[in-house]
C-alpha cells in the first residue's frame, strides 16, 4: 500500500494518514464482525448498516477497492440477499489485515 501517495491525495502527512488508517482497521474489524453476525442471524439490515460504514470510511481514505466491495455488499444486503457474503467478508478481511500489517 502506497501510503505516501494516498496521504498526498488527501493533502495529509504520512503520519496523519497512518493514524487514520489504524483507526480504519479498528473500525472495519468491528464492522466485519457485525456483518458476520448479520449473516449468521439472517439480519440483512444489520449487515447493510455495517457495510455502509465500511464503504464511507474506505472511500474517504482512498481505499477504492474496499469501498467498492462494501458498496456491493450494502446493495445486496439492502435487497435481502446475503448469498456469497462469506467470500466478500474474506476478501475484505484479507485487505484489512494486510493494511494492519503495513
Amino acid at each position, binding site marked *: 500500500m502506497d501510503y505516501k501517495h494516498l496521504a498526498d491525495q488527501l*493533502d495529509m502527512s504520512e503520519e496523519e494518514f497512518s493514524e487514520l488508517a489504524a483507526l480504519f482497521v479498528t473500525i472495519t474489524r468491528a464492522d466485519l464482525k457485525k456483518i458476520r453476525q448479520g449473516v449468521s442471524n439472517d439480519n440483512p439490515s444489520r449487515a447493510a*448498516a455495517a457495510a455502509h460504514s465500511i464503504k*464511507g*470510511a474506505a472511500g*474517504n481514505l482512498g481505499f477504492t477497492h474496499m469501498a467498492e466491495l462494501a458498496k456491493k455488499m450494502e446493495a445486496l444486503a439492502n435487497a435481502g440477499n446475503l448469498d456469497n457474503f462469506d467470500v466478500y467478508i474474506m476478501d475484505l478481511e484479507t485487505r484489512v489485515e494486510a493494511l494492519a500489517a503495513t
Partner: protein
Amino acid sequence: MQKIQPYTVLAVDDNLLNLKMIEKSLSREGYQVFIAGNGSEGRAIAREKHPDLILLDIEMPGENGFDVIKKLKQDAATNPIPVIFLTGVSDVNAKLKGFDLGAVDYITKPFHPLEVLARVRIHLKLSIATNSLIQDQAAKLLQVAEAQNAMLPAPQNFPDATFGVYYKSLEEAGGDFYDVLTISEYITGYFVADFAGHDIRTSYLTASVKALLAQNCTPLYSPGESMKMVNAVLQQMLPPEKYLTACYLHLNRSTMTMTLVNAGHPPAACLPVQGDAYLVKSRGDVLGMFSDAHFGVLRMKVTRGDRFLVYSDGLVESVDKKINWAAGARKLLPMFQNLRAFSCADAPRQLIRHLPGAHKIPEDDVVVLCIEV
C-alpha cells in the same frame, strides 16, 4: 498576546473515521472542532457550545440527519447555525428535502478534506456577512424607532390637552402612529392612525404624516377639511396599495364640541361623566387611497369630564382568536367604563393591563389614547 477565539465547527456522523478526518483537516487550519457520534449527542453539543457551523451526516442510526436538522431549526438557540449535510446519497429529492429543512449546502461522500475545508470557509463567510447585515439593519431600525418615538407627543408636554397614552410597537419600527395638535388655545386635535403593514418604509412615512397634520390641522380648516387635505397629499405620496386608517378627534373646549372624523378606523368610545360608555361610530374611507374619499364626520356636544377612547385595531382585533373590530370594540366598553376611578393619564395603561390575555405577546402594534374634556 491577545487570545484569538477560533471558529467552531460541530461534526455529527456515526462513522468515527469520518469524524476524525474532519477534525484533523479543520483543526490544523485553526478551527475548533466538536464531534458527535449520533444525532441527539450532536444536538446537545449544538445547544451547549453554539458552534459557528454544523456538518451533519444524513444516514445515521436512530435520529437521522433530517430529524436532527428539523429539531435544530425548531430550537431558537440553534436555529441560526448553518448546517451542511454530509451524504453518500446523490438523489436530488433527498438533497432538495435537506435544503427545504434549512441546510445551506451538501458535501458528497466520500469527501476530500480540502473540499470540506473550502465549503466550511465559504459558509462561515456567508454566515458572517449575513449576520453583520442583520445587525446593521437592526441598528438602522433602532434609529428609526428612536426617531419615531421622539415624534410621539408625551402627555406631560401638552398639559392642556389632558390625555393619556399607551403605545406599543410590535417590531422595531411600528405602523401605528398618534399625534396631538394644539390648534388654538382651546382647540386640540388628537390623531391616531394605523398604516397597512409595518415595514421600514411605513416608519419613514409617519414623519411625513406628522408634518402634514401640522400644516393642515389649523383653525382655517374644519376637521373634515383637514382630513381631506391630508388625504389628497397622501394619495399622491403613498406607494400603491399603501394606505392608513385613522381617527381624528377635534375637541373645542371653548364651545364644548367634539368632532370626530373617521377614515376606515375602529369606532371611538365615549364615557360620559354620567351614564354608560358607548361607541361613537362613523364610517369613512381610508386615508391615502382615493382622491374622492368620503370621511364620516360626527359632531357632538360634550360635558366637562367626558372621556373619549381612540385606539388602533391592535387593541380590539385578534386574528388568532378570530375577533374582528366590531365584536372587539363592544367588549371594550365595560372595561373602559370600569376605568373611571383611574386618572385619564393612567387609563390606557390600566386598560391594557385588564385586557384578557394581556400577558401574551400582542399580535399587532397597539396605540390607545384616552382624552378627557
